[in-house]
Structures are given as structure tokens and as C-alpha cells.
């Protein structure tokens, strides 16, 4: 198992199987994300998108298969290697997951303090830089409960970007936001991808952002527990042989 060759991809999933007790959630999932790509993981509700992401960032152990983050097999590695892999990734959770007892500024500063030796004034400057990147200048001293849902997502994004990760995982970044804010987040994702050369993996089912952002798409299905389609969004919309995929991309209108 450990002899399997390292992968040149930024993230690679090989033959991943997820099972809770008798319930099989995902079976034999394999795909690779090349560096600097933007991949969207799609699927209907309950198809295991978020579960797949939780396995890709090492929060849960798969029943079988491997996940490689920049050549580190995070399913079978030492704690030290796992921590190295964690430093390469940033994660934006669905509910932003900002620490509610800390201000926005403290949330962004948290990983910077932990993994660098800069002084407090220097870290404060970096927090300013990161917050202005997501358009949240001046909100350092607000608590997460004091800002809106869209602002929380952006603050979560700033925290995920705090240590300039090579790979960014976003769980439904624009879900529950109004179209204008959602489009702003999409633009932000593209900017990050271009300016910081970050590999981005998005879990979503928002059609508009899939077309705006994703270069590659994989689609999960609840019944087969597997990937039923992969390609660019345009290919899937028009050329997919699978009726469910075409329905998904055409909002159920065939």
C-alpha cells in the first residue's frame, strides 16, 4: 500500500471507499487535481460531496483507498507528515466555522501566530492584508456574530488563506448568499487562483458559480456511490450521456 508511487497532482484520490457501519457512502472514487486547477465536486443532496471533502482534508479516515496531498499520502502517514500536509491546505467550511469567541482579526491571526514567529504588530499588518484581499478592511475587531453571512464566508476565506496555502478547499462557498454576493465570492476565488496560483477544490451545487469558476468538474451520484461524470462544465451540460447529469446542468429541464 505504502509502495504506491507518489502523485504529481496537487491532490489525488485513489479508490476511496467511505463506509459507516453497513452504510456505504462512497465507493471506488478516483480522481486527480493538477496544480493550479479549479475543480468542482458536484452532486445532489446526500450524494456525499461534503463527506468526500472531509476525507480529502484528513478529518476522517476512509474504509479503503488513499488521498494524496502534494505527494503525501495522508491516509497512511506519520503525525509529522500529516501536519506538513495540513500546512499546505486551507479550508473554508460551509458555516464559515469562525471561532465565535474571537474577533475576525484574531481568527485570521490564529494560524499566523501558531506557525510563524512574527511579532504582534507584524501579524496585525498581515491580518489587514488578508482581510483587504477579501474586501473586509476595518472589520478586525468585529465578532463573527456581528457580521453578515456573506462577510463571515469572506472572513473564513481570509483565514483559510492566512498561510498562503497551495491548495484551498471550499465547502459550498456561495450557498445561502444572494446572487450579487455569491458572484463576488466567485470573482474572489478566480482572483486567488490567478494571483496566488492556488489549486482550488470547491464543493457546490450552485450552477452559476460552477460555470463562472470551475475548470474541471466531477459529479457524484447517490445511487451508484461513484463519480458518474467528469469533464468541463460545458461538456457536461451538452454532451453528457447521462440523463441525470444533463438534468442537473439544465435545472431538471430536458
Amino acid at each position, binding site marked *: 500500500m505504502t509502495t504506491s508511487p507518489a502523485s504529481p497532482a496537487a491532490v489525488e484520490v485513489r479508490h476511496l471507499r467511505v463506509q459507516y457501519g453497513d*452504510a456505504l457512502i462512497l465507493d471506488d472514487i478516483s480522481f486527480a487535481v493538477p496544480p493550479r486547477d479549479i475543480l468542482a465536486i458536484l452532486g445532489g443532496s446526500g450524494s456525499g460531496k461534503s463527506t468526500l471533502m*472531509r476525507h480529502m*482534508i*484528513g*478529518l476522517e479516515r476512509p474504509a479503503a483507498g488513499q488521498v494524496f496531498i502534494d505527494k503525501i499520502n495522508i491516509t497512511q502517514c506519520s503525525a509529522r507528515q500529516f*501536519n506538513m500536509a*495540513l*500546512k499546505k*491546505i*486551507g*479550508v473554508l*467550511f*460551509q*458555516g464559515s*466555522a*469562525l*471561532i*465565535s*469567541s474571537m474577533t475576525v482579526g484574531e481568527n485570521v491571526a*490564529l*494560524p499566523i501566530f*501558531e*506557525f510563524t514567529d512574527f511579532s504582534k504588530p507584524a501579524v496585525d499588518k498581515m491580518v489587514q492584508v488578508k482581510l483587504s484581499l477579501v474586501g473586509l478592511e476595518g472589520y478586525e475587531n468585529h465578532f463573527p456574530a456581528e457580521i453578515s453571512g456573506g462577510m463571515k464566508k469572506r472572513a473564513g476565506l481570509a*483565514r483559510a488563506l492566512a498561510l498562503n496555502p497551495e491548495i484551498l478547499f471550499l465547502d459550498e462557498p456561495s450557498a445561502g448568499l444572494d446572487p450579487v454576493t455569491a458572484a463576488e465570492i466567485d470573482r474572489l476565488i478566480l482572483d486567488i487562483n490567478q494571483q496566488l496560483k492556488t489549486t482550488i477544490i470547491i464543493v457546490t451545487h450552485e450552477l452559476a458559480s460552477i460555470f463562472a469558476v470551475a475548470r474541471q468538474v466531477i459529479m457524484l451520484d447517490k445511487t451508484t456511490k461513484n463519480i458518474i461524470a467528469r469533464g468541463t462544465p460545458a461538456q457536461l451540460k451538452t454532451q453528457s450521456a447521462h440523463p441525470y447529469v444533463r438534468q442537473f446542468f439544465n435545472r431538471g429541464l430536458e
Partner: protein
Amino acid sequence: MTATQHLHSPPLFDLQETADREWTIRITGDLTIAVAGDIRKALMAALTGKPLTSLVIDLNQVAGTDDYGALVLYELKHRLRLPDDRFRLLNPPDLIKGRLAQMTGTDARPAPPGPGLFSFSFVTQTGERTLEILKEGGNFISFIGALVVAGMRIAGKPKSLRLNDMVRHMKTTGVDALPVVALISALLGLIMAFMSSLQLKQFGANIYVASLVAVSMVSELGPVMTAIIVSGRSGSAYAAEISTMKISEEIDALVTMGFDPVLFLAIPRMLAAVIVIPLLTMFSNLFAIAGGLLIGVTMLDLSAGTYISQTLNSLSLFELCWGLSKSVVFAILISGVGCLRGFQAKGGAAAVGHAATSAVVTSIFLIVLFDSIFAVIRSYWG
């Protein structure tokens, strides 16, 4: 429709015996949610006690219908236990027919039990509960392991201890609890002094009220009362706070940022508790003795000087240290259980409430258990 109009509204149906033991109900108005309750009540009243083996519902003249209309007919059929061939509908609208078929048809089986529901079978329930207890034991052991690992990390790199958080928890657990601890302890001292004086007065042994209050508070009641108050105030707060962070993915976020959640959340709380709970216990002792002093001076004709010197005579340094070491153990129990229950939480808002409740219940149980262990040790110690 007002109540008076309602009373004079035309009858909702008429009822006739059309053949031997066969009754026909002709519904003339609406059969919708607006009248369903009235029709149901009136029909039940009209049919109760009638010799009846089959029923015909004439829907030729029915005006509006909806699924609640169908529900009235379903309940009628169900209550009277009529088989399909003895319950006929005349000219039912499609909607009524469809809904009624859906309610009575073969597809209308009760929903299967959800995955999270406990089975009611004794054997499976016992098995499930056993597995749950084993899993909880496993959680407990791995939590202790995680605490040890976090402790070693701090020993290796003291900067990783979140000192600011610790100070904040010292304030909320200690300073903020002082008024309530002081009040309860003072009242406890008052009560003890008063109750014991009723007995001791008979022997003229009033002076021993001071010894009784001092010894029982310092070695037993001070640590236990303080621990119980703190577990209600702070043990539950730890559990609620951490479980909320758990269900809102904040702990997952900490993990992916490379933090150890136990080091980040549990260690500052536990250290804070271990520092402030013995201090609170000291205050508790002090206030209880003050309460006793008040009774002694006002009701027992003791001078403050005698009371205090009798108190000091009856206490020893060992007694004080014994009480304080108990309170250190209680502090570890309260904060550890609070944090563990928080980390164990799973699900939604109910999980937060459950974590807080079970933190308090478990820690009070453990406080009493460990207090009795201390008592046994002491009795062998001599």
C-alpha cells in the same frame, strides 16, 4: 363565519337507513378542511349506537373537496371498522378517491423506523446500550491520552499554552463564582451553627459549635459544596461551549489549521479550574466560619475572640491541605468531564443541551464518588 351564523348554517349532511342495517350519508355542502372538524364530530355523534353493518357515502351533491375531506371518510371507515365492500362511495370526485386510496391502499404502510431510532426490543436495546457504554469508555481513555499528549507538548513548548484563554477562564470560573460561593457558604455556616447549637446547648457545649463548623467545612463541606457549585456554573458552560464549537465545525476548522483541539480548548480550562477551585474552596471555608461566628456571637453568647480561637484550635494544617487536595481532584474531574462531554457532542441544538446536562450529572456523581474514596483512604491513614 360568525358563531351565530354557524349555528343556523344548513346541515352538513343527511343520514338515512336505506336498507337493513345499511345507512346512507348524503353530503350536500363542502367537504374541506373548513368543515372537516364539524362534519367529523356530527357524523360520529349521529352514527354512534346505530345498528350498522355497511355504509354508503353519497357524494353526488358535494360541493368543494380537499384531502381533509378524504381524511374524514378515512376516519369514519377506520372507526367503524368497515371492510372495503361495506363502505361504498357514490360518485366520488377524483381527488377524494385518489387520496382515500393513498390512505387505505397497500402502499400506506407505516414508515420504517429511522436509522437513529432505538429499537424497542429488549435484546437489541441492551446490546446497543452496552456498545454505547464501551464506546464511551473508549472515548474517555482516548481523552485522557490526548490530555497527556497535550501536556507533554506544553512541557516541550510552553508557548503553545494559550495563557490568555486560561486567564479568561480563571475569571469566569473563579472570580465570577465568588459571590454565589460566598453567599451559599455563609448561609451553610449559619445553618450548621444554628442546628448544632440546638443540640449542644443542652449540654452547655456551645463553644464546640465553632469546632464543628470549622472542621466539617474545611475537610468536607467546603470542597464538596464549592465543587458542586462550580460544576453547575462552569462544568456545564465548558460542555456547552465546546459542543457548540463541535457542531458548528469550529473544531474541525482548528484541526485543519493544525491545532490540537484538546490543547487549544481543554487544557486552558482545566488548568484554570485547578488553580481557582482550591482558592474558591478557601473562600468558602472562610465565609462559612464567618456565618457560624455570626450565630455564635448573636445567639450563643460567645465572644468573637473565643469563637475564633476555638476555630483555630480545632483546625490543623493537615486538615486544610487535605481539603484543598480534594478540591484539586474535584477541579480536574469537573473540568475534564465538562470538556469531554463537549467533545463527544454530535448532532444539533439538542446535543448542546445534552452535553451540558450530562456534564453536570456526571461530575456531581464523580465528586461524591471520589469524596467517598477520600474518606476511605483517610480512615486507613488514621
